[in-house]
């Protein structure tokens, strides 16, 4: 099979799962599609090398997506220190998760914290694997996870209290 045909077959098979993963990472389907398309085009441009070096192009693509998503956020924060988090104001799909407080709380996390949570609980990666995927230290993973969990806990607690009134 030609390399491009192989890549095309890979895209057809992996696309639905990668889009779901992108949806989790970005919090909305539009940014998910953009993130996946960019990542897959990069992978396809060096398909042979990715297959040869990694042996698992799906895992490679998913980690590239997480890293790219977080890197973009880092730049935005550097240039706009007082700006709203980049998700705010972007197009979001509110329908399917409208009644899911945990999803809403997760979506409102800063991207790096959200990525750590997604990699840990959806990808089931270890702390060291998350650090490797995001290009940060294990200490950073630990602190980001701790902040994320504290925020989720606070927000869910608020939701429960408000709902109980």
């Amino acid at each position, binding site marked *: 099979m030609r390399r491009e045909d192989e890549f095309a077959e890979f895209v057809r098979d992996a696309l639905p799962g990668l889009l*779901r993963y992108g949806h989790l990472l970005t919090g909305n389907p539009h940014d998910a599609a953009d993130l996946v398309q960019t990542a897959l*085009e990069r992978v396809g441009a*060096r398909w042979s090398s990715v297959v040869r070096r990694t042996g698992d192009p799906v895992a490679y693509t998913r980690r590239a997506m997480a*890293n790219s998503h977080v*890197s973009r956020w880092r730049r935005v924060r550097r240039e706009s220190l007082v700006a709203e988090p980049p998700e705010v104001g972007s197009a979001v799909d509110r329908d399917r998760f409208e009644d899911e407080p945990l*999803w809403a709380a997760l979506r409102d996390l800063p991207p790096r914290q959200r990525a750590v949570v997604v990699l840990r609980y959806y990808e089931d990666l270890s702390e060291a694997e998350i650090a490797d995927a995001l290009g940060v230290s294990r200490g950073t993973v630990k602190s980001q996870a701790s902040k994320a969990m504290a925020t989720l806990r606070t927000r869910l607690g608020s939701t429960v209290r408000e709902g109980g009134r």
Partner: protein
Amino acid sequence: MNEHDDIDDIDGELRRMFADVDDRLDVPVRPDASARIVAGARRRRRRVVVAAAGVFVVAALAGAGVVFAIPERDAPPTASSPPPSGERPEGDPAPGMLIGPDGFGPVRLGMSYDELTATGAIEPGDPRPGAGPDCAAFELAGVTPAGRAHVNADGVQVIRTTEPAHTTDGVSTGWTLDQTRVVYPHVSRQAIAEGNPVRVPVAGNLDAVYAITFARPEDGFVVAEIALQYADQPCIPYY
């Protein structure tokens, strides 16, 4: 991370949600989505080859003193660097089409969906963006090199291309980081982790900025994509 006491109660909730979200996470895509991605990868592969060729040409020109003062890859600019005028050497035309100061070929920032369709740059059957700030992305082809336009109810907000193109200052796809820094000195290596665009001003359009994305082939960063966009565009938060 499980040793943190404060996450124990959330832990189970997250596991339950993530075990049950797949159906709701589905993202509907166009029937030709896979084919478009394969075509995009093919274009990127060609671009990397073009970029590599561009680096070779620049190296050859360096011998004639044209870009001799450009610092070594990833070294900081020095006092001997050329001033950031962005002027290209005479007789060295920038490759590809000019993107900016306010458009890319017939596609202009602020152009409505109908005006964009009338240029022939997008397919008439593409769904129009809805009202409000939500944006839709359209593949550009035909009257421009391949690219994408992000459009909302206020018109075209972002125009992107990975094809050979150059900014108003002459920075082109395929340029190395150091070449780019001669023209836009604030572009640092730290700011361009792969896939991470950096903003630079557009000469002649105070409302717009370029978002330049670098890729890293085997041996260093090169300009992979140039986006012309309104400085306050709402379509791509991280651009």
